[in-house]
């Protein structure tokens, strides 16, 4: 499908937050004896249950030079167990339509489960078995490692992947956030099964873990099922979520990656706010005005709507335990990259200088508040939000007070954050594109960004849909 701009694609149910302070169903909380925090939102309209167990074991815990360890651990835990080899395990899961997966982000590592209500018990059995009885099959590890290295090579065809690797290295040199979670060909080649076991032994522990659940179930039903399965799991993660130093800010750095494409991908980047930053909401609104809000945003207006230079231009920041990246990204025909970058820098400078109209400010807030209900309108989204709330220790009324907090942001606060974050000289630049164009563009003149990255899976040959 082609969607207009980079709005999320199908499947991810559109994120909107309805304008209704949407009596967000309250989050219920319980703690198991072993320390696992359980967060639940009931939703009885579809006979299904979704959940996510999240622990501080993401890629920032990869040993030095071994980027991709947490991602390989995720692959191994969901592939087989001590009791079931990979074929028996796949058959067991498919027999009950149990969707079990594991994934490593930067901070968090999660195991997720989606099941029909009537398969909840076998689903929980499967989640528990993958979590507590890893199989550590050496042959499977070798296959997984080899395929991951091949996938990493294939990914080098993608400008977005190249940019994100270069950007992480630029912003976070010698810092645990300085690599992509999936690793690189070189780092994956250095990983042994022992590295996975070490990470597992240190970080996959109940104290510090959060289990977020949404669906057709009550806390009274859920707790006995969990206690029966997880009671023997004990211990505390060696390192906590907040055991990490801030990266040192850098400015004015540049990195170019040559790729034989027709477009140039330009990303400007710097450090953004952390998840617990007291100015989180003003920066959130600022980013929405800048390039996070799709068609109404300043960048979209100036670069696409007025000049037709790009299909997509957008901005986002990744709030982590400590400041993560704040990124502006676009893709345009290589010879237009300098022009597009100049427009972006002008928008940044204008906003940093306080040129943000009250009208624009209000429109962004209205949109954010209005679309809140939609951000939570599926079990998958609710589980993701609760896992985030639990892991970063945000208050449990985070969702029910979300619209109030956005509503309370003032234009003066947004302008303060604009002057703090949007001064062009404080940003760095990554470009990915044809070598000739990289050479010809003078150092200062050319950054830009890209539209959303594509998944590595090839698209369906025909009959696919495209968005606006």
């Amino acid at each position, binding site marked *: 499908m082609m969607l207009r701009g980079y709005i999320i694609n199908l499947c991810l149910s559109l994120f909107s937050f309805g304008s209704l302070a949407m009596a967000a169903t309250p989050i219920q909380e319980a703690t198991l004896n072993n320390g696992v925090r359980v967060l639940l939102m009931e939703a009885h309209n579809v006979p299904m249950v979704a959940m996510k167990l999240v622990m501080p074991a993401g890629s920032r815990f990869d040993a030095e030079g071994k980027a991709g360890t947490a991602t390989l651990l995720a692959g191994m835990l969901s592939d087989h167990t001590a009791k079931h080899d990979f074929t028996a395990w796949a058959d067991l899961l498919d027999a009950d339509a149990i969707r079990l997966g594991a994934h490593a982000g930067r901070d968090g590592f999660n195991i997720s489960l989606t099941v029909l209500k009537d398969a909840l018990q076998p689903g929980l059995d499967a989640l528990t078995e993958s979590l507590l009885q890893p199989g550590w099959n050496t042959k499977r590890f070798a296959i997984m490692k080899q395929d991951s290295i091949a996938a990493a090579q294939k990914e080098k065809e993608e400008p977005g992947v190249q940019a994100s690797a270069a950007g992480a290295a630029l912003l976070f040199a010698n810092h645990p956030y300085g690599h992509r979670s999936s690793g690189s060909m070189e780092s994956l080649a250095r990983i042994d099964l022992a590295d996975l076991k070490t990470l597992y032994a240190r970080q996959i522990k109940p104290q510090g873990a959060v289990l977020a659940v949404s669906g057709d179930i009550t806390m009274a039903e859920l707790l006995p099922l969990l206690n029966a399965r997880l009671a023997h799991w004990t211990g505390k993660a060696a390192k906590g979520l907040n055991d990490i130093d801030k990266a040192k800010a850098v400015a004015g750095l540049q990195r170019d990656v040559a790729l034989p494409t027709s477009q140039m991908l330009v990303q400007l980047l710097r450090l953004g706010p952390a998840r617990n930053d007291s100015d989180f909401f003003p920066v959130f609104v600022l980013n929405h005005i800048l390039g996070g809000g799709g068609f109404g945003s300043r960048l979209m207006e100036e670069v696409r709507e007025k000049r037709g230079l790009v299909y997509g231009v957008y901005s986002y920041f990744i709030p982590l335990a400590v400041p993560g990246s704040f990124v502006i990204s676009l893709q345009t025909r290589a010879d237009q990259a300098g022009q597009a970058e100049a427009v972006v820098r002008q928008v940044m400078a204008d906003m940093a200088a306080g040129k943000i109209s009250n009208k624009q400010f209000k429109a962004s807030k*209205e949109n954010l508040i209005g679309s809140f209900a939609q951000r939570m309108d599926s079990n998958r989204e609710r589980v993701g939000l609760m896992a985030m709330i639990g892991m970063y220790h945000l208050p449990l009324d985070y969702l029910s007070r979300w619209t109030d907090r956005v509503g309370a942001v003032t234009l003066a606060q947004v302008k303060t954050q604009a002057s703090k974050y949007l001064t062009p000289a404080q940003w760095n630049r990554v470009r990915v594109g044809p070598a000739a164009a990289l050479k010809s563009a003078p150092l200062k003149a050319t950054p830009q960004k890209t539209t959303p990255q594509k998944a590595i899976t090839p698209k369906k040959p025909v009959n696919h849909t495209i968005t606006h």
Partner: protein
Amino acid sequence: MPLYLTIIFIFFGSLLVATANAGELKQASFKNGVKLVVEEDHSAPVAMVQIWLKVGGRDEVPGKTGLAHVFEHMMFKGSKKLDAGEYSKRISAMGGNDNAFTSTDYTAYFETVPAARVAEVLGMEAERFAHLRLRDVDFQKEIRVIMEERRMRTEDDPNSRMFEELSAASLRLHPYRNPVIGWMQDLKALTINDVRAFYQQHYVPGNVIVVVVGDVDFEQVKNTVAKTFGKMKARPVDARFNPKEPESFGPKRIQVRLPAELPMLAVTIPLPVWQPGKNDTEVAALALATHILAGGRSARMTRELVDKQRKAFTASAGYDPTAMGLDLWYAYALLGPKQSPAAFEKALWLLLGDMAEQPVLASELAAAKRNMIAANVFAQDSLYLRAKEIGHLEVVGIGAANRDRWLDAIASIKPADIQQVVSQYLLPERSTTGVLLPVKKAATKTPKKKNKAEVKS
């Protein structure tokens, strides 16, 4: 943030969301040909509004590919009452999101909004539908945006480019041979007059299906549609271009040489699509066969070709029984540095041959059925997917009212049915094979030339 990343999903014919838990469909038809389908769901105070058009890439004439999608972009460029961009701003101000999508078979415009604003949104949709302002100055900018979109999606992505070439080689007549985004030379040649002619010809009430899912009342929505889309003057509706693809007389093959890191191989085969009441068993068997090959953790292509035989590092397949006229079934493999396209290809045909000769296990078939039915339940979790299924089934002529039949068809399939369709359809002599062969990096020169050519536009 992952929220902002576009993810391309491949459906295994699971667009059919069938019954499980779906609400009751309520429908109305208006004299001018406009149709309304509503599914009420009062679990949250939001609604999804989708306006579906029976026009897409297949309705373009040769030399003007990409026009349906270009037109979709122009729908955001202003109408009699609303300036360019104003439409989305109003939706945004009411706390909604809007967007649109185009495929070979349809174009759809959608908004997620607070349920209380549905009438207002339908009014705005009807206004721009009837009174679009098509200015050349807007078109000139937008066509450049779309060329960037094509560069991003296709020209700079070797896998996409290979699939585009393969589709074109697979079919001689059927419009699925053309990319929805359009060939670059066609995009360069399009004019505002083409856009205006397209508007006059295709944006007529008889091509409209209004779908609303969410916290609404059917009677109220019906009244609103009667006063908006329902009031438009009836105009003639063209029959859709849906030619019969000639049979082929042997396997076809192409090579695509591009700068890339690793090779890819894909195979396509034209398959029948669902005509309720006529071929339910055949098409459901094809969907299940594809699921057994490529769906779930126990997918045969992954287990046999990737994990056991080590012929690829990723392999999958897909089939959409809700396409129009035919569907191009496909299988593909991503190959590692020591894996050869020829060896994968041989192993794939052996796997398919085995499926034609040996009945699938009862447990395997049961798991496939259970997973397809579960996928339908999980899809109920999203208003967007629910509305999309309804609109899609209407537009291609299957009819949303038939969605319950699908689960019945799936449930009735026996191992012999699968053997039958695999041996009848999934054959080398009906296939087209494409191989992406990486060209070593003398590549830097190529894009330079390409750029020059494009500057002329």
